[in-house]
């Protein structure tokens, strides 16, 4: 083992950012149960900070949040060397095709509408992790 490596080297980290704290906690519980490490943020600024600092393997971003919503956050992340390669999955309770398109353009790998199908959501996350190898 080299210096700096820790015991959770194989554990994948997911950043969940949503201003609905109840939902963030629920997702944390379920993602941890599925074997992921979870860090959480409740607004856009915090999401960007944590993403830069922790370089998670995946970011789940709510579209509408205070202090820079999901679109602003992903834009900042894609323009920062530290975070540009981290895949992003969007969550939103809005039902808007244009929004979905906007998310795709900004480089999101997934887009889920709340309330979402749980198994599809978990599969999408596993898929992203698999692609990262």
């Amino acid at each position: 083992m080299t210096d700096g490596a820790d015991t959770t080297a194989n554990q994948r980290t997911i950043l969940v950012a949503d201003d609905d704290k109840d939902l963030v906690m629920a997702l944390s519980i379920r993602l941890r149960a599925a074997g992921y490490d979870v860090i959480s943020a409740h607004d856009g600024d915090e999401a960007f900070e944590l993403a830069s600092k922790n370089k998670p393997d995946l970011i789940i971003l709510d579209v509408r949040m205070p202090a820079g919503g999901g679109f602003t956050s992903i834009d900042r992340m894609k323009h920062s060397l530290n975070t540009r390669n981290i895949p992003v999955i969007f969550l939103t309770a809005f039902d808007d095709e244009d929004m979905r398109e906007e998310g795709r353009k900004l480089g999101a790998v997934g887009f889920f509408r709340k309330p979402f199908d749980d198994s599809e959501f978990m599969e999408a996350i596993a898929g992203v992790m698999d692609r990262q190898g």
Partner: protein
Amino acid sequence: MKVYRVAYLGNDGEAAMGLETALKGDGFQFMRAGGDYQGMEKAAEFNADVILWDKDNLPADAAFPLEEIRDAGLTRQAVVSVVRSNDLEGAIKSLAGGANDFIYKPVKEDPLPRVIAALNTGQKQRRIDWCNRVIEDTNDQVKGILATLTDPAYIVSPEYQILWMNRAAEEIFGEGQRGGACHHIFYDRTEPCEVCAKSKGAARWRATLKNGKSYRFISAVVRNSKGEVEKLAVGTDITPDQEVSKIHKTFIANVSHDLRTPLAAIDQYVNILLEGLGGELTEDQRDYIDVIRRSSFRLHNLIENLIDANKVLSGDFKLKMEVASIQDILDIVLGRLQSQAEDKGLTLQVQVAEGLQPVYADKSRIAQVIANLAGNSIKFTEQGMMQIRAGFMPRDEGRVIVSVEDTGIGIPKEDLGKIFDLFYRVEKDKVYVEEGAGLGLAISREIIRAHGGTLWAESMEGMGSAFHFSIPAYKGQAVIR
């Protein structure tokens, strides 16, 4: 027989005498008066039908005094000038000035044909004048009405020149714009707008004007009293509609967002509990949580249906049209319908006519209609069967008709006309159906209408119901599945 009156205006006694002698024998009433303004007024009092105007008392180069004659009250009478037989120039000048004819003096030829021709011209002129007056009056009335509008109205010439604007238009574009080019004054353009370039006649368009408001314009071709074609345009301020529609859209988007958000949390915690992540559950606890799950699911469906109904009924939805076979569309929903029918012990039969033409439609929307109709059938049928049939109707260049029939409770006659109304539910003591907000059929009818189709129902209470919709068959080549 009507006696016609001829007035001679001039000072040449010999000529007057000659004319009087010639015409009196033919039954005309004749009067003489001076060639001045007073004479003209006398002729008007006499109620003359024809004026014989002798230019002798005027300088040789004087213009024919038509305006004076009209002013004196001889507004529509034919005027014949009397000129010396060597004064061809004078004759031509008087014709150019508005005289209907001329007679040479001294009088050698019979003046009767000239006078009769002038009378005839005068009568024609009177009719034309009358028509023109009606047109002018009508135009004035229309302008009067348009002037009071709070929305802009204007008239332009075929050369795009502003001829008239009402007060509301002046308030937007400023006074004193008459004579300017409409595209320049209204829209700061150097060239005519596309609407006018495309159509010289009636047209409709929308435009945002200099006051920042949006208007829907309609234009029509009108004729002025000279018979010239003009274009009249009237705008309606649609800014309030657009604002209301925008507020409505934002409101619905936010409400939908806020209704769905807590459902996501409920779903997640239900899953946490059911997966045992909150500790072991007793059998009873599991059952209770299952009730929460089902209720949340129903609430979710209801919210989505309401949002969808709002979209469809306000026309705010886009169809993703493609060529599809009815079988393709049925495949989207049949699995779910079969299992729903089986759950109730019903048989669901499906018959699609062989070689049935495809349709050009939004597959998921048509599937939604079929699911709704068949879902209703299952809901209201306790025993027996239900059937979905699809066939061809040669009417209107070919239509595909889909029928959903059941042996259910049927619909009372008095309700049959109302079932497509929004929020309408058939109240029946013997059947309690807990689901349904009365949205499905209203949505379905709009979807079918948007496809250029018709949705209708037949029913006999106690025997069953049949719902049919027809949409145009696809006329291009059939696609291979």
